[in-house]
């Protein structure tokens, strides 16, 4: 059965309209979701996977899962939160596959912008952070998600998200300012 093209989606749909359109399997609704979230999803996935190709795979995989499961989405959280949660899970699936294949770690494709040494140092320091602290830092500071959204993505209380962000920044500050930390 071909996907419906969804002429029923208004120009500026509300979240609820978009969701209903997605639940009907209308491809234009998924294209709208892509337009809304793909850039941020790619960036977050890139920081988790250290590879643009894998980041794109994770985004693609996420859309497949969203399409498959949207009928069962119970609206206990925002659609965006649910999508980011699936994305993070997809990234971890890719990381697990890498572990299974005992693949060599991919070297981070560092930006070569010499005007931004702090940016480069920060990028390297992030790799040394505790996993959950890094994830919260990436979502809050880099991608601009709110603590309320992060708590939905990670299924932790908002206070925990704030505490993990604080721990992340404290560790980063230490790594970036104290000479004994080799970054």
């Amino acid at each position, binding site marked *: 059965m071909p*996907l419906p093209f969804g002429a029923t989606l208004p120009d500026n749909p509300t979240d609820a309209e978009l969701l209903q359109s997605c639940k009907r*399997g209308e491809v234009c609704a998924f294209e709208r979701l892509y337009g809304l979230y793909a850039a941020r999803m790619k960036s977050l996935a890139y920081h988790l996977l250290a590879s643009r190709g894998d980041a*794109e795979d994770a985004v693609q995989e996420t*859309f*497949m899962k969203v399409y498959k499961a949207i009928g069962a989405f119970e609206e206990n959280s925002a659609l965006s939160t649910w999508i980011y949660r699936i994305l993070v899970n997809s990234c971890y699936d890719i990381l697990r596959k890498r572990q299974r294949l005992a693949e060599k770690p991919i070297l981070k494709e560092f930006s070569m912008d010499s005007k931004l040494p702090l940016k480069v140092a*920060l990028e390297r320091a992030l790799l040394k952070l*505790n996993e959950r602290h890094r*994830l919260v830092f990436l979502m809050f500071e880099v991608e601009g998600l709110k603590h309320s959204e992060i708590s939905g993505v990670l299924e932790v209380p908002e206070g925990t998200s704030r505490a993990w962000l604080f721990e992340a920044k404290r560790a980063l500050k230490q790594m970036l300012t104290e000479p004994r930390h080799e970054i």
Partner: protein
Amino acid sequence: MKFECGDLERALANPDLMADAQLHMRDCAACRNEYRIWNEISTAAKQLHCEWDSPDLWPNIRKGLEAQSQPPKHRADWRLWALTAAAAAMVLLAVLRWPQTPTDKSVATANLSAQDFLTDQALKEVEKNEAAYRHSIDELSRLAQPKLENPASSPLLASYREKLQMLDSAILETRSNIAQNRFNVRLQTDLADLYREKRQTLQEVLTRDQSN
């Protein structure tokens, strides 16, 4: 409350204390510097957001969505062929073992009975194996439960938890479909795949170091 340099970290963690910290920083260069570094990290972090063109990504996703909306024909086909071949081999084996009788009629009857018997027998075997497999998975689930339910578990464990929930839901759905058509080999194979995936996921949970 008298705000001192040692309180700065608490203020950074708790925005309610920030007003006091700001007052303190007016006269404290060291804390001002600490606060500046703290903010610089946030400023630099914004620059880590990266965007690049992916002209093929949406077309690929679209293709994938279209493929998902089609029944998984090829996948089902090879499984069906493999299972049909296995079933045919078992039928042959059963026929060869079946006691030979002299009349054509009784041979025909025997073959028919053997086929019927084999189908039932095979189903019983599948159901017996499934029950045993399910039991061993339940045991693994029981062992993994404390790790999975730990509220302080890592995001990776949370992702395992979510995956297991999705698998459980898929298993329930497949089992419900099987209840309506117990002899459907494709459904039985799908169920076996789901159980295999669940077992593997649970084993990964159990072997994963929780310290991270």
